[in-house]
């Protein structure tokens, strides 16, 4: 068995999108509390969304704001008090102070450590496990061998991003509000691409993500058989079609892998993924290389023999 999850920031997206591909949902947008309708800053909307998602049989995690300052702590504490009576399955936290706060409040929920929390080592995972953290997103900058080392040397489960834009940074201020006039309602859900020569980035306001989509479809089988079971697709500010199509492609692939089918990549899915990607694909940092490169046989990737990849990525003794 495996788990496939994604973030659903608002009630509108939850209602309008077919989420049947996903087992579980991170409710809320952790990058900015001012995202219109953000489920993690509107307790009333959160409750409605949670019950809707539960009716669909989804696991539901509340995703808290990633970079809270002192002034944010009181409203987050109120949100958590409200959440304590809800049937949540966990809380995603990107800030170590909030891990402490949840522990102090004795909330009955497992904690998932988000990618902005900068988890780089198994020792940090072990320390945080004592404070209630059960699942971790390793920092995207880690290689597969490092992620696997954490997975096998700490009691926490590792959540692996397998598709979507890579979170590259988070800021104090909203880039969009600095460059565009208008309200958050008018500005927030449009795509903002940044270019410099051959480089591309996408801006989400306070967060900046990769221009290319991370894509691990061709490595999914080896990841699965190595023991990874908890997978995540990053879909913040993506279209309804993106969330549905990419989720379905990976769900089907994972089900085939689970059944022992080697030929798990449906050729039509390659075309669909390409259609949905504005600036192409990358593998992130998993193969010890710059995050924007794509190593592999698909999408015109850089061809490195599987042996070489295997030697580099799985070289340590388990």
């Amino acid at each position, binding site marked *: 068995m495996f788990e496939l999850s994604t973030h659903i920031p608002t009630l509108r997206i939850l209602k309008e999108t077919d989420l049947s591909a996903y087992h579980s949902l991170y409710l809320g947008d952790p990058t900015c509390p001012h995202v219109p309708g953000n489920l993690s800053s509107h307790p009333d909307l959160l409750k409605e969304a949670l019950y809707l998602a539960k009716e669909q049989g989804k696991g539901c995690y509340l995703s808290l704001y990633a970079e809270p*300052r002192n002034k944010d702590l009181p409203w987050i504490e109120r949100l958590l008090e409200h959440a304590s009576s809800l049937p949540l399955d966990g809380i995603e936290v990107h800030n*170590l*102070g909030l891990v402490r*706060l949840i522990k102090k409040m004795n909330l009955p929920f497992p904690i998932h450590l988000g990618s902005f929390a*900068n988890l780089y080592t198994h020792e940090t995972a072990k320390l945080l496990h004592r404070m209630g953290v059960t699942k971790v997103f390793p920092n995207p900058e880690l290689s597969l061998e490092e992620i696997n080392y954490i997975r096998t040397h700490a009691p926490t489960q590792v959540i692996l991003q397998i598709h979507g834009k890579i979170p590259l940074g988070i800021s104090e201020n909203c*880039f969009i509000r600095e460059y565009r006039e208008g309200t958050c309602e008018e500005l927030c859900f449009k*795509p903002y691409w940044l270019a410099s020569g051959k480089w591309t980035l996408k801006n989400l306001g306070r967060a900046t993500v*990769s221009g290319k989509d991370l894509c691990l479809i061709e490595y999914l089988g080896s990841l699965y058989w190595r023991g990874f079971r908890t997978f995540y697709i990053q879909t913040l500010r993506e279209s309804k079609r993106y969330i549905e199509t990419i989720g379905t492609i990976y769900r089907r692939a994972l089900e085939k892998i689970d059944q022992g089918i080697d030929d798990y990549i449906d050729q039509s899915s390659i075309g669909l993924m390409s259609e949905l990607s504005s600036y192409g694909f990358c593998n992130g940092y998993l193969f010890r290389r710059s995050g*924007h490169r794509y190593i592999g046989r698909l999408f015109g990737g850089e061809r490195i023999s599987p042996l070489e990849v295997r030697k580099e990525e799985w070289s340590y003794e388990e």
Partner: protein
Amino acid sequence: MKNKISLLAPGGSPEMAQAAFLAGADAVYVGALGWSRRTARYELPDQEIRSINRLAQDMGKRVRVALNTNFSPLEMELFLKKVERFAQWGVHGLILTDPGAMFLVKERFPHLEVHVSAGANAINLEDLRFYREIGVDMVVAPCNLTVEEIAEIKRYVDVGIEVFLHSNTCFTYLGKCIMSSYFRYQWHWDQEGKNHFWGSPNRGGYCHRICKAQWTMENGEPTHLRNDMFLAFSNIPDYLEAGVDCLKIQGREYSIDLIREIVSFYRTLLDELTQRGKAVDMAAYLTQLQEISKKRDAQRNNRTHTVLQELMEEAPLPV
């Protein structure tokens, strides 16, 4: 003024450390080769750190060793051996970023002071409580924090606070950016087996300063990713009032003469503030500081230009 505040200066080389001590720094921080948030050319081999530590002990000063990269989980044993060596040499404190590493150091070497690096991005009261509870002694406050936030932290959390006197506020929160390594990243091991992670400011210290490149929006409209200069000068009396414990001068990459000048400037200012409080003529000091800042900016701009040039041309990365 509430307490005696200490002045921390960079030790980019033994000569710089000595100049800083003589100019009035209470302590210097040095980067262990491959382990700090700067490139190798501004870091030091262990034996040079040992000699700086001896010099510090002779002069009644202190040394903090920065091991504040987000190193690999596979390097944890190497890290602990390094820490053991510095502990045996009587180094006073370490600057760290990884919470798991901090916890292990405090468990195994309780006499070593642990300072939370600015790269750990401790930005609220609960963060500070978290770090205090795992045993750390001092937290370096990110530049984003206001005087009021720092005062609130000092009021409610019994932990030392260190602030930068001048720096740059990155486009993102410090320690929360992997844009540089997204565009160019190389693994490179040194003779000790430490990976320098070229291209990652969090892991190896070499930042390509992507945010300083020329950016356009999708329609071609020029834009820039905000990266402002941070100068704490006017806040210093308030920092002292708030109970800040340490003021940090950044700049292992600057010239020794410039560091000597900066340390001397702040030493004189701090001594006068300690004696005369808010009666000090800050405007006169500001004029003097503006001259120093021009030299600092020239050295920084040259460096940024070189770094971006190297990236664009994909030139070999420096060791």
